[in-house]
């Protein structure tokens, strides 16, 4: 190193130049707004094949802290809709996603195998269920899915989807703009809406300094294509786990009651979001025989029974299209968790949902 390197005035000059460069870069960034263009590019569908399910980005970014537009671009739903396609979107939690099942053994895959048709249009089912249970999060996903011309939503919900807690990582935070629009339109007032439903657009939010994390997350998400999708095979049977004999959640659990609480608005919001019909399925839960307090390791019987009554009442009152499959699977059809199913379990759920759709088709000629 030569001598001038040790002089403070050199360092001051370096700092000044760096500051000027940062200002120039931010002004240019503000004028060009490259992130808007960048978001429309993806390695998925070009260098790498689309994924059958929504990715679960768990790299250095906070889990799920990703814009839904970017997330959807990795999904096969990004393919153009065929003229003879009747596009069905499945939403819900990891059980509906098929965590632990192969792409060919999810509820969506079995629904595809059911080969439903409507006036020569073939049903093509897309799996947009994501890990974690949150009705509000699903509303956000459903709203994004409308850009991909769906003809029918099949939405799996369960008791835990209506917890009035901030949930599912950073998905709300990363999609504040969209969530604020939904909050204003439907008067949402759960804790997520309170935290992330008040986005205000300012010029500095479009600077390089402010959007640097978005750029990193977008870039990091593209490299996610190199990795095996996060789901893995599950062999463990849930019945091996001990179920408490005292209720694990009481009937007045504060996170879930009053029932319906503010999170239930997601159901009515989703159904009135567009003219696309929404089938809301109360998904099966594990019912452990011989336990009088709990249905499984998470759910107390009294609380869940109250939820089911509320669910049916809420559907009737708001004229929602609902299907209650709560006890339709035998205990042997669950895998590592009470909401995760074996391949056979998924096949059975898909056949029950397909029957419901067929029945409804005959009655109403869905959306046509």
């Amino acid at each position, binding site marked *: *190193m030569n001598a001038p*390197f*040790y002089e*403070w005035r050199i*360092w001051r000059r370096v700092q000044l130049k760096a500051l000027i460069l940062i200002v120039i870069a931010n002004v240019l960034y503000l004028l060009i707004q490259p992130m808007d263009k960048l978001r429309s590019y993806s390695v998925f569908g070009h260098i*790498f*094949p689309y994924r059958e399910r929504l990715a679960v980005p768990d*790299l*250095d970014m906070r889990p799920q802290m990703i814009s839904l537009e970017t997330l959807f671009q990795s999904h096969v739903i990004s393919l153009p809709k065929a003229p003879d396609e009747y596009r069905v979107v499945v939403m819900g939690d990891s059980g509906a996603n098929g965590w632990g099942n192969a792409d060919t053994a999810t509820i969506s895959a079995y629904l595809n195998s059911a080969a439903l048709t409507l006036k020569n249009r073939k049903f093509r089912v897309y799996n947009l269920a994501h890990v974690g249970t949150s009705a509000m999060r699903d509303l956000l996903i459903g709203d994004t899915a409308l850009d991909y011309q769906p003809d029918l939503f099949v939405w799996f919900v369960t008791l835990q989807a209506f917890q009035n807690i901030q949930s599912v990582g950073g998905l709300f935070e990363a999609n504040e703009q969209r969530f604020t629009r939904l909050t204003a339109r439907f008067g949402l007032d759960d804790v997520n809406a309170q935290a992330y439903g008040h986005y205000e657009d300012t010029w500095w939010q479009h600077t390089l300094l402010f959007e640097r994390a978005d750029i990193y997350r977008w*870039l*990091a998400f593209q*490299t996610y294509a*190199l*990795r*095996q999708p996060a789901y893995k095979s599950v062999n463990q049977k849930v019945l091996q786990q001990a179920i408490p004999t005292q209720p694990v959640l009481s009937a007045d659990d504060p996170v879930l009651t009053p029932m319906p609480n503010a999170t239930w608005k997601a159901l009515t919001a989703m159904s009135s979001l567009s003219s696309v019909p929404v089938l809301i399925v109360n998904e099966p839960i594990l019912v452990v025989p011989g336990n009088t307090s709990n249905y499984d390791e998470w759910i107390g019987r009294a609380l869940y029974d109250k939820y089911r009554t509320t669910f049916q009442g809420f559907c009737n009152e708001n004229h929602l299209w609902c299907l209650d499959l709560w006890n339709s699977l035998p205990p042997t059809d669950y895998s590592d968790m009470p909401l995760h199913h074996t391949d056979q379990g998924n096949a059975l759920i898909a056949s029950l949902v397909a029957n419901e759709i067929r029945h409804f088709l005959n009655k109403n000629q869905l959306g046509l």
Partner: protein
Amino acid sequence: MYPSASVPHRRTVARRLFIAFCLIASAILAYVTGGTNLSLVLYAVSLLLVIVISLVLRHLIHNPQSRRWLVPASVSLLAGVLILSRIRRVQLLFFGRLIGQGTEWVGLSYLVLRLIHVVVDSPKLGEVAAGDLAAYALFPPALIAGPIHRANQFLPQLDQSHYPTTQPKLIDSLWRIGLGTAKKLVVANALSLVALNVGVAVNPTLPRSLLLLSLIAYAFMLYFDFAGYSDIAIGVAGLMGITLPENFANPYAQSTLTRFWQTWHMSLSFWLRDYIFLPLSGTLLRRIGRRWATVVMAISHLVTMTIAGLWHGFSTGFLAWGLWHGTGLFVNAQWSKFARQHEIKLPSIIGIALTFTFVTIGWIFFALPDFGSGLHVLARIAGR
């Protein structure tokens, strides 16, 4: 009564304050990095080990004849603690449960190597006070990942000023911290997005070319991450008035594997050379004679690098990585001998390419948790 403001007294106070600062800073670092309260308990055990070794040193000064049994016993104790902390089965056997599950025993691997060096080289060091030894063995900038500095270089520095005494020294230290931070947080973190890992290795749809690129990215990520960390450690130590040894010197630009190891994680390489390779090869040569020098060299390289592999962790992947490098170093030494005898000189670019390829193949076993998955990736890259 203390003598009034005499220079030696001021030095003693400054020294004690510095030692106290080092120990408190290390404890905080151990707690923050380890993540649980148990990290602090494990840090206390580290301190206990230092005290035991300082007692051993004191005993050796007064009873040099006990060196014959006390040095091997101390080395065995230190190696035993390291092994115990690494092997789950041994923990289950001794404690009936896993210790430190979800907690990291911060800096244990490096602490053990430093203490072994102190015990083996005790005649050169003389008596070392427990506080001085603790400041050396648990020196905060080098606590987590080295460099593995030597006590004979560190201890005399305890009497120096504990701040950069000149402007160039201050700027040098800040420069090293900045450079290291950029290497680690910018380059290494960016490379980590595409570097080989289990998720990439098990993705059956990934083309061979991209798998190879991810392996090369891993090679550079590892370098920038570790060299960056070493830069930060050296820079922070510089701010504390302590000079730590260099750890990296363009390892991927070396034309032989031997030179690679003289420039990659140098402080570990030199430790392995001084405390495993040279004693082992020397003993074997004395015992079985120079006639078997080639066999002795093969054994010494393999044993040294196998230990180096297992020092990183007890897995079949690290074992394979150690054996790979042990074999490579032996073959490299034989080739150098042959080339010297026959006056063969290859262009250095060929040597650099061959060395980089060899080292990068070895990283497959380093990156993945077991030998089987490493072999699987190697086969896929080879097109099988």
